[in-house]
């Protein structure tokens, strides 16, 4: 079920991804920012909840998921902002053979630049906190399956608010309600793993949401870009 529009002619899609990776590489110093922000937010929870080890362990899934969600939301604004400022967003909309395809690749590049390092950091932190093996695996699986929705739906929000004053806050207001199903099933999967009740159904939901987002979100992003540039 490969959507034809998404498979832009190979050189174009490769060029878009190559450009995003080059830009990522050129500001690789900033690549550390999302994971650092994630650790910072995750560290806040114990101060608020108190040192009770048992309670903290029970709330670990929520802490990780909310920190990942916030770190991703904050990084969404950069997806199109610099392109809009230097005029390359107009070139993309006008010249790209398949704009939805380009938007899908933009979302992929965002996933590689923010959620992916966050998942690595979550893996590191969960081993540091020596969570039980099945909790840790549930956490990583649910993050890998669920965070694509953050990037894909987030790209729609980023397109709709590109160039808008106070865009970051508006962007969060637009997309957070749409992130809630992922948060429910993501944190739910980890919580069920800690209670060692049967998980698995959550993974299917997360995977389903990601596939739905992967097929529909790029078209909404493309329409959003055309609406913003019109």
């Amino acid at each position, binding site marked *: 079920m490969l959507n034809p529009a998404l498979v832009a002619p190979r050189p174009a899609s490769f*060029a878009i991804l190559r450009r995003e990776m*080059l*830009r990522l590489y050129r500001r690789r110093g900033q690549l550390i920012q999302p994971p650092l922000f994630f650790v910072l937010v995750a560290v806040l929870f114990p101060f608020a909840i108190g040192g009770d080890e048992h309670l903290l362990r029970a709330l670990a899934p929520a802490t990780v998921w909310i920190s990942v969600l916030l770190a991703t939301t904050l990084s969404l604004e950069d997806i199109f902002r610099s392109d809009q400022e*230097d005029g*390359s967003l107009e070139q993309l909309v*006008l010249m*790209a053979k398949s704009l939805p395809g380009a938007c899908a690749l933009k979302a992929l590049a965002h996933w590689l630049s923010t959620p992916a390092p966050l998942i690595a950091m979550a893996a590191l932190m969960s081993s540091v906190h020596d969570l039980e093996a099945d909790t840790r695996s549930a956490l990583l699986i649910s993050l890998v399956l669920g965070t694509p929705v953050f990037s894909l739906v987030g790209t729609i929000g980023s397109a709709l608010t590109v160039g808008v004053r106070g865009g970051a806050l508006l962007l969060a207001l637009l997309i957070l309600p749409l992130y809630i199903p992922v948060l429910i099933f993501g944190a739910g999967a980890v919580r069920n793993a800690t209670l060692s009740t049967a998980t698995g159904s959550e993974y299917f939901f997360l995977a389903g949401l990601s596939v739905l987002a992967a097929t529909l979100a790029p078209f909404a992003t493309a329409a959003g870009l055309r609406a913003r540039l019109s």
Partner: protein
Amino acid sequence: MHAANPIALDVVDIECLRGDALIFEHLSFSVSAGRVVQILGANGSGKTSLLRMLSGLATPTAGDILWHGEPIRESARFHEQLIYQGISVGFSVSLTVRENLEYALAIAARGAQASTARALARVGLTRYHGTLFGRLSSGQRQRVALARLLLVPAQIWLLDEPLTALDRAGKELLEEMLLGHVESSGIALVATHQPLGIPPGYLQTLDMDRRTAC
């Protein structure tokens, strides 16, 4: 006056609103193949808005724009023949000049196999192929934009103030390219105040101020 080619681009009674402010209305003109249209007009008279509408980015609130009789909104042929260059020329500051040009060539995917090296040589930026675009002067940036015009095949050029930072040699280069473009029956609409060294036979002017006044 050259034999009048068939009308290629036809602008019919278009109107432009920004918010509730009227920028221009009842604007009609047509351009046949092999013509350069110099768009004159005071600041805010709608030169950029007109070019954005011609590119298809913006839609006129009234009237229509036809390419060989077909509204441009529904004409894929039109968009495959178009290059639009805004005031911010559309290259990424964190990529090198060559990477930017290769990217522009690749996403357009118009089957051109032109070499970026030759284009850069023509615009005199060979030495800068590895330089980050962000480090170039604005004149050099506009030269990179000229290299894109050489690289990406297009029958329609929409250029918004392409000359502002170009030196004399750069201006002559653009005029030479424009002449070559229209001689191979291309079309160019150029928003600029500076006089264009284009033979009168190929040149058409459109004054946005005079149009809205009448």
